[in-house]
């Protein structure tokens, strides 16, 4: 291996080769990047510097039927943490400042670990202004902590509507997975009631502002002066069929009681009020719902989260007698003049007692007096399966399809059911109790509302619903939603007869004469559902004005006793609120309605 001459031709060639080789490699590489793969890099470059900023639209508000605002949006401060910049040793300080249980902040952060640490996490909504100013003062010591102004739900009309409106909540991981085309982590979605059912109408459409950002993602201006921006579209403002005043009265009356109230407009199926009691405070859900609050709701023995109006199942008691009367009249097994003798009871295998001796009663007076004997016998004339057929016509044993989601179907027995249970020779005596709405009949308050609406409007109505339509903000007109029409095809005369009986319940010598008042006539029927676990449940169904009903009401109060005493007065107050609206407003007084007579004992 001898030395090579200085500056040899060989070595020049090698250096020449290296230079040309590097030049060639660079040229090929540049050609590949700038000519062949240009589009890919171009796309990346565009995505790099133009950042879409999501514009969350205002959620649609809720109006009541008189266009009073029931639910709106109010600005509130939300504390956020961006984990990428956040120091977890601040957890304890924040827990203290927010006034939450130790470990709260940590648990929120943990729940959001699955998402990018550059996405800010909402830790708590609706924080006090004092916390905001504390954040401002100490911002330099709080890396990754900030606050934003966001809209949260407000309830300006003083209506709780917890089971009606529902609430919005940060989207769950499961729902996000299903609908990731639209939602992003941290988005709020309707979680219950109308908020959930009409989510797609209420949420509007997100917009995007395109901004130029530098490499540190700092915004440095609008992209093309906002030419490509897409403005968000506000959610639709829903017009509910609810009457804020009736709803408010119902909520006040039900406070401290357990049960449900539904008011409905018979001719349209529009729900005027819907209350399940106890309620819960929807304002609590405007914040990041604390676990404690949810646990409290879940563990409450009175089950406030349970929507009694659509979910609770009870025997309808005497309110169900109307159904048998209609069936018998429509089938022609009785005429208005058919009488049945009541001597204080009825024997079929065993003795079924009545709460009095009513003598020979026709159907009108049987309803007026709520005569058990009459209805014990009537169901045998109708037959069990026919009886169920009529129940089905009125919508029992099935969901009403109301537009707030969760709902129970209830249960109406038929022959097949008993045959299956007891065999071919099932004890026919069971039927007697069914005739007066006791035993294995279970219905929801909402089903009863539909039922009374159909009675009041002679068998014609619409599927019960809460949202009438939405307000077109340009024209100011209500764009109505369509709901299915119901026509039972039962003769008007049949309804006239039972309605006469219901009229007499209040206006005659019936079980709710204490509702009589000088302003309008009420028709109704009281009921008491037997409760094997405690005091009976009080029921009342009714409508007013009797001559041309515009409101029908169902009241169910649990564990209090007789329907006439406990349920009927609530219905009366709601009818007052609806029918005497102007009068009450003009007077601005709270006249005490004198109780004219005590409830009579029935059943």
């Amino acid at each position, binding site marked *: *291996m*001898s*030395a*090579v*001459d*200085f*500056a*040899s*031709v060989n*070595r*020049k060639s*090698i*250096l*020449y080769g290296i*230079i040309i080789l*590097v*030049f060639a*490699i*660079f*040229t090929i*590489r*540049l*050609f590949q*990047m*700038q*000519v062949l*793969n*240009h589009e*890919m*890099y*171009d796309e*990346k*470059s*565009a995505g*790099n*510097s133009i950042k879409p900023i999501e514009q969350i639209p205002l959620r649609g508000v809720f109006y009541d039927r008189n266009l009073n605002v029931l639910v709106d949006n109010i600005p509130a401060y939300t504390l956020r943490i961006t984990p990428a910049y956040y120091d977890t040793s601040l957890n304890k300080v924040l827990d203290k400042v927010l006034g939450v249980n130790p470990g709260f902040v940590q648990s929120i952060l943990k729940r959001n670990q699955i998402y990018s640490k550059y996405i800010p996490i909402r830790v708590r909504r609706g924080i006090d202004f004092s916390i905001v100013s504390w954040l401002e003062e100490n911002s330099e010591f709080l890396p990754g902590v900030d606050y934003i102004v966001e809209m949260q739900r407000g309830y300006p009309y003083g209506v709780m509507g917890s089971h009606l409106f529902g609430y919005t909540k940060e989207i769950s991981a499961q729902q996000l997975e299903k609908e990731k085309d639209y939602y992003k982590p941290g988005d709020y979605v309707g979680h219950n009631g109308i908020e959930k059912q009409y989510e797609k109408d209420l949420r509007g459409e997100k917009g995007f502002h395109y901004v*130029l*950002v*530098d*490499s540190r993602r700092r915004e*440095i201006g609008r992209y093309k002066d906002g030419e490509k921006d897409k403005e968000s579209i506000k959610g639709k403002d829903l017009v509910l069929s609810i009457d804020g005043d009736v709803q408010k009265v119902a909520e006040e009356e039900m406070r401290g009681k357990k049960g449900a109230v539904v008011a409905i407009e018979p001719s349209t199926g529009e729900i005027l009020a819907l209350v399940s009691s106890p309620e819960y405070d929807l304002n609590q859900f405007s914040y990041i719902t604390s676990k404690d609050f949810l646990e409290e709701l879940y563990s409450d023995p009175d089950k406030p989260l349970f929507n009694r109006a659509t979910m609770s199942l009870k025997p309808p008691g005497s309110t169900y007698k109307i159904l048998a009367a209609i069936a018998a009249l429509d089938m022609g097994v009785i005429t208005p003049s058919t009488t049945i003798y009541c001597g204080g009871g009825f024997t079929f295998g065993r003795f079924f007692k009545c709460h009095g001796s009513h003598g020979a009663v026709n159907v009108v007076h049987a309803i007026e007096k709520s005569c058990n004997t009459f209805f014990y016998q009537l169901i045998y004339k109708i037959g069990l399966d026919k009886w169920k057929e009529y129940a089905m016509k009125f919508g029992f044993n099935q969901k009403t399809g109301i537009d707030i989601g969760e709902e129970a179907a209830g249960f109406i027995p038929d022959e097949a059911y008993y045959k299956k249970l007891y065999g071919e020779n099932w004890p026919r005596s069971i039927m007697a109790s069914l005739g007066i709405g006791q035993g294995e009949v279970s219905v929801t308050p909402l089903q009863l509302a539909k039922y009374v609406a159909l009675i009041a409007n002679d068998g014609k109505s619409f599927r019960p619903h809460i949202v009438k339509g939405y307000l077109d903000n340009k024209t100011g007109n209500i764009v109505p939603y369509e709901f299915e029409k119901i026509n039972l095809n039962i003769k008007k005369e049949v309804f006239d007869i039972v309605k006469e009986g219901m009229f007499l319940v209040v206006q005659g010598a019936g079980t709710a004469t204490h509702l009589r008042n000088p302003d309008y006539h009420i028709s109704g029927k009281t009921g008491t559902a037997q409760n094997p676990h405690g005091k009976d449940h009080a029921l009342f169904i009714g409508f007013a004005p009797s001559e041309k009903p515009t409101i029908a009401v169902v009241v169910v109060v649990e564990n209090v006793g007789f329907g006439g005493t406990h349920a009927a007065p609530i219905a009366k107050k709601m009818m007052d609120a609806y029918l005497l609206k102007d009068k009450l407003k003009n007077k601005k007084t709270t006249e005490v309605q004198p109780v004219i007579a005590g409830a009579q004992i029935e059943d």
Partner: protein
Amino acid sequence: MRIDYKISDKFDFKIFIPATLLVVIGLAAVYSATLNNPAAVNNFEKQLLATAVAYVVFFIAYSVPTNTFKLISIPAYLLSLLFLVVVLVIGRKISGAKSWLAFGPFGFQPSEFAKIGTILLLANFLSRLNNNIDSFKDILLALAIGFIPIGLILLEPDMGTSFIFISLILVILFWKGISLLGLFVVLSPGLVAISSLFGSVPFIVSLLIVLVALFFFKKDLFFSGSVFAINLAAGFFTDNLYNALSPHQQARIKSFIDPMSDPLGTGYNSIQAMVAVGSGGIFGKGYLQGNQTQLQYIPEQWTDFIYCAIGEEFGFIGAILVISLFLIIFLRLLNLASTTKDEFLSLVVIGILGVYFTHFLINVGMVIGILPIIGVPLSFVSYGGSSMVSNMFMLGIVMNIFRTRKNYA
């Protein structure tokens, strides 16, 4: 002596014009890259001033008698070392490296000028030897001349500039005519050192290769043993050196192995640089229209990543133009080095070519994503006063050598 010589006989326009075009393109790119950055608002003016100074320096270097370079080689080298020591003591830290000496409003990077001192002394030393540097002692001495400044620069620490020095030493030794064995002795510790960075298995494999090579060179046991010991030491030394590196440099080495491993961290620059160049397309996005450049996607783009701005705003055409200008300069210098009869001057030219070429290779290579991110500027183009002045100084030297090339027989 003829008086009416052609000016092109004394002044090599084929080097000067491409270099000046690069300077002009560089100024335009620096203007574009700093336009929207408040932190760099004065950089264009500073660069303009430095360029003016650099051309003055160029003409001085061009005009002085050619033997000056040999005369100043020892003092220039010693002065370089002195400044490299001083900068470690009182230097200012800029982006992690203590490489900057400030004199009032002015400042300079001693390592830029140490290149010149090192080239001159190394060329001087080697040209005194009689066509034979195979003696172990000579190689060691030559390496010492080169590695003392490298050691000082690594202490700053400035890895990129160290690479430039290693490269210029190798190119000069190669040009001098070092034997394959000599080259092996010089190169192998470096290769073993780099292998050791990738883990113990590559380290052991590289040591085995060294053993096999030593067997084929058939040298005596003492020589082979020494070389092997040096290689072994280099491997272990690298491990220590790696641990001594600042975290950002360690991260850079790691991110070269897999740049996508941390797209927001150290791999970020590499990705953004490629996006900038690639999105330029054939004709570019237009001057001052590159969003990657204008939106400051790449930190301090006007220095080491200036080629991105060119690639993005002037496209494939502009990018090819720039590397073509460099190609002309390189081939011209190679030609000059091989036609210059004086050995010292020839070695100086080849050393300067080595400096220009290594800057070009590392800088453009990293911007287009085929080399790791090592911070070295692109000669004539990148922002930086010291670099501009030293590059034009070296250009003055080679043009001076061209001017007097016919004086040596």
